């Protein structure tokens, strides 16, 4: 086991280098760079020699005149000591910008993931056990309807109906805390944040139920039809014992695969939800950085996500052996 782990950990390094090199090259090869995008349609900057020189000097300030491979290794050299550089947009350290955006994104994602899991897994189990019943049909239609509603529409509708001045006024119109909340006692502060998070969390979660519930249902149905379940029932074990002890655990194996995407998923925000609810999170940060070719920010977010994805895959592989002892890691390695 430890030999396997070591091997896998060592493999992460070259994989990461590959990912970051490809990302860096893609950003550099994409049309437009930070300087030329800022100039935009300003024709003056493209005609006279003096103007072109000013542009070249500015590119040099950002190292955009260097070959891609040189630029990449310079970036890597700083990254190794955890220096992600400064953002082009505001001249502040990239780490500070991420530190501002990350907590709220993390909070939103953790809450919505937990909600999705605790609602869809039981829903899937009940559907599987009552296969083809009215409940099964109604719930799957309902889940697919939810799944197919676009989140920008739902988000806006929720805001208009529940927090606008015209219908109900139950929730705030976006943001994460009230204006004067910094002076609140902690419990009131927490309540205030929760109140702000209700609508964004609903918008983030409703679409996720269908996938996981259907996934759970299919897995459980497959397991229930296995011979050892039939045997267990034949031996006279109670229905709930069969389902929850024998079948449930075995139906979790495919769900573990999903775990691999959880870690990086926690970090990624949603541009749509963040812009509707005026939440300055990771989604908007990354989106704006990509549009403006803010290389230090793009690279920092990309490398953190790459690292978390690699870790997530490793964790998922280890989890396999936990939920299913038949899977032995040594053999695979």
């Amino acid at each position: 086991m430890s030999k396997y782990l070591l091997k896998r950990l060592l493999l992460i390094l070259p994989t990461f280098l590959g990912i970051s090199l490809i990302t860096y090259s893609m950003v550099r090869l994409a049309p437009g760079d930070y300087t030329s995008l800022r100039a935009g349609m300003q024709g003056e900057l493209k005609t006279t020699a003096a103007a072109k020189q000013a542009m070249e000097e500015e590119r040099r300030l950002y190292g955009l005149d260097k070959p891609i491979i040189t630029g990449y290794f310079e970036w890597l050299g700083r990254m190794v000591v955890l220096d992600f550089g400064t953002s082009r947009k505001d001249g502040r350290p990239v780490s500070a910008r991420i530190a501002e955006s990350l907590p709220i994104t993390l909070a939103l994602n953790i809450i919505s993931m937990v909600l999705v899991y605790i609602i869809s897994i039981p829903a899937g189990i009940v559907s599987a056990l009552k296969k083809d019943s009215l409940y099964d049909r109604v719930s799957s239609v309902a889940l697919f309807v939810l799944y197919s509603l676009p989140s920008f529409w739902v988000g806006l509708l929720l805001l208009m109906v529940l927090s606008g001045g015209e219908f109900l006024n139950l929730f705030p119109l976006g943001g994460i805390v009230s204006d004067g909340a910094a002076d609140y006692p902690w419990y009131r502060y927490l309540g205030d944040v929760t109140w702000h998070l209700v609508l964004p969390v609903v918008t983030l979660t409703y679409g996720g139920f269908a996938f996981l519930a259907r996934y759970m249902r299919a897995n459980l149905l497959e397991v229930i039809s296995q011979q050892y379940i039939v045997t267990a029932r034949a031996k006279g074990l109670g229905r709930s014992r069969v389902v929850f002890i024998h079948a449930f655990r075995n139906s979790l194996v495919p769900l573990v695969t999903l775990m691999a995407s959880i870690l990086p998923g926690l970090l990624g925000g949603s541009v749509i939800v963040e812009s509707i609810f005026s939440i300055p999170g990771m989604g908007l940060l990354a989106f704006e950085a990509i549009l403006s070719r803010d290389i230090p920010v793009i690279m920092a977010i990309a490398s953190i996500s790459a690292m978390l994805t690699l870790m997530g895959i490793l964790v998922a592989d280890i989890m396999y052996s936990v939920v299913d002892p038949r899977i032995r890691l040594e053999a695979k390695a």
Partner: protein
Amino acid sequence: MDTSTPVQVNESGVRVSFKGFRILLLVIAALAGAGSCGSTAGRDNPGTILIHLGAEPGHLNPITSNEAVASAINEHIYESLLDRDYDSLKIVPQLADSWTISADGLTYVFRLKQGVLWSDGVELTADDIVYSYNVIKDPKTACAPLKVYYIDVESVRRLDRYTVEFRYSRQYFRALEICGTIPIVPRHIFDDGTDFNAHPGGRHPVGTGPYIFEKWDTGKRITLARNPRFRDRAPEIDRIVYKIVQEPNVALQMLKKGELDLVSLRPIQWVRQTNSEKFDRGFYKLEYYTPNYSYIGWNARREPFNDRRVRRALTHMVNREGILEKLNFGLGKIVSGTAYINSRAYDASIKPWPYDPARARELLKEAGWSDTDNDGILDKDGKKFSFKIAISSASKFAERLSTILKEDLMKNGIEMDILRFEWAVFVQKLDARDFDAVTLGWSLGFEEDPYQLWHSSQITQGSNHCGFSNPEADALIERFRVEYDEEARIRMLHRLHAILHEEQPYTFLFCNPNLVTVSRRFDGVRVHPKGLNLHEWKVRKTHE
């Protein structure tokens, strides 16, 4: 805030850098004029105005930033030597007391007002102006979009503590404006040996204007407070809070709930969502114009747009009244030329070509285009009339415009495909002149120099991306740039207008209005030719 932005940028001489940004705004119409952040209570103080900001600026350094949102905020914090009057649009003193221009038009001497204090108490002197100029010129300063305006400024010298002299290397009618609107930053704060581009002063501006920077809650709001050291009459509004809200629909809801006082509207919001009596009781609706227009550009380097009859025929096929009604609910004015429609430079006697498909067909026939093989598509020498229009994928206006155009042209035997590009790719296509047709908009200054857009020297790399070339226009533009007499310049612009009307390098579309709504908590809200002036607004006493 769309409203005061063009104005401010004009003043600081960054006209075209704003121009660049304004196009972005037009093109990314979906994003234009949106933004704010959630708050539950309204305001802590009735003297505070809450203004919607659709996007957050990176910083507020007036030298390195060319973002429209930053200029809109900076106009309350920073000042320059000269300003433009809100009503007459004439150049008036701001930090300068008086100025003299040498007979050859190359030397500009400004005499500063004495006793002007930066908001931290240090006095403003000629050294600050010389320092600002040197920073702009410094190759290590990332301000290429601004630098380009000061290429022809040879030197800036301090004559004494309150006098500064600018020397221009060639004659130019806008020289006074460019020298007089130089962004001025406090030397005692920035000149500390650190990197100017990342200087913390960029996010904690210190200026001489009526407001001072108070607080920046990243991603949420930027707060300004009245400057107690302001030399002139203090504005009545205590605080200006810019709330960042990305989504325009949410911003309008916030306005209705009293969480915002000033929001720029989109045409559909103006027509459909703000027309109740209740809304009218709570808010002013202000529709006003600043220099801008949208257009469809035809690449004159390529067949068949190298023939002006074809370009004119296409203009006759664009149903501008219909499009304006359908896409903008009739909000806007159809223009026939490049000058600002509400200025004397615009020749109102030149009417836009009418929508007239029959006339278009005739013109195309003259140019040799007819449907010889009866397949419904015009052809000439065996080639079909088929082309592609390039649009920015973020622009809803361009998307809808091109869809309507495609259908209309099809009815007249012309095949058009739509190519959508991300903004960065779009700009690259434009720079490479790799397009048949394109739709965009320009935002202009109050005093326009047609050189960038229409002189033939700008065809290969500049803003004349459609390749318009006309010897008379070239000569006119060259004389225009060294003509100091305003009346003579206006006559020249009228002539240029006529040439453009005949040549149709663009199908000129619309001058789009600013649509702004402001809470009736404020009195004295009125529209000047230059736009809105927050500094004259009063807080209505009876309210709240």
